[in-house]
């Protein structure tokens, strides 16, 4: 390995020497250096401006709808493009209900994966298998989840609803939550695993030396120590669930009214945008949809920032 690393070092430096022989003028170097530094600095500034630009664009485009409806936009339930009357409460409800149900089902699963990978099996075949499986789940496109949900979950739900004596729709809030729960497992699980592996060895050894069983070790040392990190993982998963579009659009049923049943159709903030944005004619209609996007953007931004703060603080401990 020593020889190897030396070889890499040398070859890299050789290419540098070649670079010198290519350009011999020192003054030229200075100018190039100046421009190079300014260029990458400019890229960095542009990137921050890009994000601000997204926010400002969404804000400016929301103004017509903000002016027209004010706060009633968030409290009324009529979504009527024909009469230009827009209230987003049905979609807010749809998003919140589906995301939270998904989140509650996810927690035991992602926590189990985190503990399995971070404490029970850190290495070996099982650990590799599970870790890769979870990573792959994170890589599957959301349209594939939606498609699979439509042709696999929906029929199952339909026969279940039939047995329970409900209208056998198959699609709806609960089906969406099930699909979302599967989709967000990887996000909370991977962060959870990371923080659980970061629990200091001496704390764990202390607990074991006092005679704690593995369960007691996890309950009284690992989980309390990694609590904030696990919470951050769940928060990031929530962010994913709130903004998930394609899979939700395909299985939620797309009904623009306040949901009345857990098994009935509804619409979420993201799915209503996906369904109606290209057909939206008229300033107020378009602007009402942009305002939903603005709300989504602000909420996910806040979630990202809080999550990041928690992770940063955890890294410093």
């Amino acid at each position: 390995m020593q020889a190897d690393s030396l070889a890499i070092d040398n070859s890299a430096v050789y290419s540098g020497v070649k670079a010198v022989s290519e350009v011999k003028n020192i003054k030229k170097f200075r100018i190039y250096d100046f421009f190079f530094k300014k260029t990458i600095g400019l890229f960095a500034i542009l990137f921050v401006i890009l994000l601000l630009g997204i926010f400002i664009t969404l804000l400016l485009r929301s103004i017509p709808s903000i002016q027209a409806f004010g706060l009633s936009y968030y409290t009324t339930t009529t979504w009527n493009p024909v009469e230009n009357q827009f209230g987003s409460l049905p979609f807010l409800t749809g998003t919140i209900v589906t995301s939270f149900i998904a989140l509650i089902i996810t927690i035991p699963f992602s926590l189990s994966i985190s503990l399995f990978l971070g404490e029970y099996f850190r290495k070996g075949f099982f650990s590799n298998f599970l870790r890769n499986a979870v990573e792959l789940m994170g890589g599957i496109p959301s349209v594939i989840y939606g498609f699979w949900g439509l042709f696999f979950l929906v029929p199952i739900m339909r026969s279940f609803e039939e047995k329970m004596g409900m209208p056998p729709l198959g699609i709806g809030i609960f089906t969406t939550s099930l699909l979302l729960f599967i989709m967000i497992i990887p996000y909370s699980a991977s962060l959870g695993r990371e923080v659980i592996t970061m629990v200091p060895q001496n704390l764990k050894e202390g607990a074991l030396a006092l005679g704690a069983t593995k369960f007691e070790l996890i309950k009284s040392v690992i989980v309390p120590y990694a609590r904030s990190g696990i919470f951050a993982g769940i928060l990031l998963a929530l962010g994913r669930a709130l903004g998930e579009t394609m899979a939700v659009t395909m299985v939620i049923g797309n009904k623009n009214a306040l949901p009345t049943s857990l098994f009935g159709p509804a619409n979420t903030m993201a799915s209503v945008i996906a369904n109606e944005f290209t057909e939206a004619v008229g300033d107020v209609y378009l602007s009402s949809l942009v305002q939903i996007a603005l709300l989504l953007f602000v909420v996910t931004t806040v979630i990202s920032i809080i999550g990041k703060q928690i992770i940063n603080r955890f890294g410093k401990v």
Partner: protein
Amino acid sequence: MKSNIKIRKFKNALFKTLIFTFAILSCVPLVLILYNIVQEGISSLNINFLLNLPKPVGETGGGISNALVGTLILIIISSVISIPLGVGIGVYLNENTKSKLSYYVRLSADILMGTPSVVIGMIGYLWVVKQLNTFSALSGGIALSIMMLPVIISSTEETLKLLPYSLKESSFALGIPYYATVLKVVLPAGLNGIITGVMLGVARIAGETAPLLFTAFGSPFMNFNILKPVSSLPQQVFIYATSPYKEWHALAWGAAFVLIAFVLTLNILAKTLSRRWKVQF
């Protein structure tokens, strides 16, 4: 006392069983998804499926060639935009680790990583489609490049962070200017990591549908003009899957199979390569 230990041991075993069960259960959806798609997808997969254009309902032998070309065009456009920018910003972050701007850049990358893709699609519509007055591959590519940027930025920074300072020092000691040190010493040394980052970025955008609904829009025809609407693989899956026709559902399985094979291969390749190529100094 003895029974106490028994209870504790029992709790311990119970907890372990629970953890194992839940962990194994959470792999079930993945297995089911892959199994269903491979099983149903293989049967509709043949050379005509890959080479034909979509056909109207009722005609057999529709394909996804327009979607394959469209996805390729979109990937090229977004790569051309986001790779130079992303690598440049990654270099900036590595060179100015603690500057205020770096802090905001990292924060922006995190926020962008968590921004719902449908919002990015709307931005692509408002920024590009509205100005050009037409849906286009270009606007789709721009929307996707916004999604790809944070992946490339963070993977570039992570890679460059691992390079030893001595590498840069020896380059400086030989009188090599700063820009050449970065471009010809630092970046080549971290090239492997950057390439895997690009692969992960491509894998992320190749499956995105939501940003394309209002930008690339989709088209049943073969199109190479980047100023016209194009279809894409994920969007074709969406169109076929949500249609009420049985024959189109078969096409959806096939398209889903191609899409998932492409995305997962990229993911797996990137991860294997990054393990093998891990910078060793």
